[in-house]
């Protein structure tokens, strides 16, 4: 028997535009870059706060730069996408049983959002008080 001549269909460059779910997948992969940026930004803030008032003032001036504001707004959108899709995964990953009954996925999802809200409220309280 001669060797099979298999045809290997090429993966098109625009495969990720074929379905909304593929697009969301690629955007979520991309979101890691913006999450890394937020980590760096947070470290810059911590460093500025830990240094003298002038360094903190410089940090605030830098943050008010329109280009940085635009970058941070885009980064926030990606971080929200990341968080929302991550929470969407949680009910799939967590199968919790109470006796013979399985906790409905909706309850697990709602608990995650509730926890998010509580943590956000605590952070807001710390920052704004």
């Amino acid at each position: 028997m001669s060797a099979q001549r298999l045809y290997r269909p090429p993966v098109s460059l625009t495969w990720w535009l074929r379905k909304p779910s593929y697009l969301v997948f690629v955007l979520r992969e991309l979101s890691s870059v913006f999450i890394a940026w937020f980590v760096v930004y947070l470290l810059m803030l911590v460093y500025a706060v830990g240094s003298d008032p002038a360094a903190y003032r410089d940090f605030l001036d830098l943050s008010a730069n329109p280009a940085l504001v635009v970058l941070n707004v885009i980064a926030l959108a990606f971080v929200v996408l990341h968080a929302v899709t991550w929470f969407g995964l949680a009910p799939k990953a967590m199968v919790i049983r109470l006796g013979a009954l399985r906790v409905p996925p909706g309850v697990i999802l709602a608990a995650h959002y509730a926890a998010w809200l509580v943590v956000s409220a605590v952070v807001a309280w710390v920052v704004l008080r």
Partner: protein
Amino acid sequence: MPDTITMEVWRYRPERESEPTWDSYEVPLRKEWAVLDGLNHIKDQLDGTLSYRWSCRMGICGSCGMTVNGEPKLGCSTFLTDYAPGPVRVEPLHNFPVIRDLVVEMGDFMAKLPTVKPWLVSDDEPDEDTEYRQTPVEMDDYKRYSMCINCMLCYAACPVYALDPEFIGPAAIALAQRYNLDSRDSGAEDRRDVLASAEGVWACTFVGECSVACPKDVDPAGAIQRYKLTAANKAVRDLLLPRGAR
């Protein structure tokens, strides 16, 4: 309803052509006809050279996976009338090398499947007279994953598998979970090295299309996310707990 519908079928005959082509056929449009019936009509009446796999015609054997208008489907449970007035475009499953026409090479899956030990692993030799009893609740834990028919629709739907062919893939992981979650099985530790690897569950980024494509409602995406939590839990326990308490 018109009497006929056009089926555009992806053709690849390695002895004749190095690039695939499309052939068009007019087939009767009947409300009880699935895409597979259309292909059988072509094969019987119009063009005997057309190659495709099929067997049971009732969504059990998993042979007739194909791409219908861009979506991975079982040919036998996808009805022509849903695509009227047509045309219906039929291609081989995506993400697999093609042997001929709609016949794909799935050796990659066949090689990966046994690495997750998809069978009951038992610590001790079972007594011939022993019944392995299981409650309905215990069975519910894995029953969904046991419905897999190896049709490969989930692999065709998975962009991660397209980009990283080393990925063990949705069906193989769902089948591993089918046994991991079985109360009679004690092989979870044996499967862990493969499942908890970079080519295992961690390659998955939860696109979720495998569960959308699955014709048997297996939910491979759910099986994978669930194992991610298990694997992470185990890793932390290994790190923190003394050997005896894991």
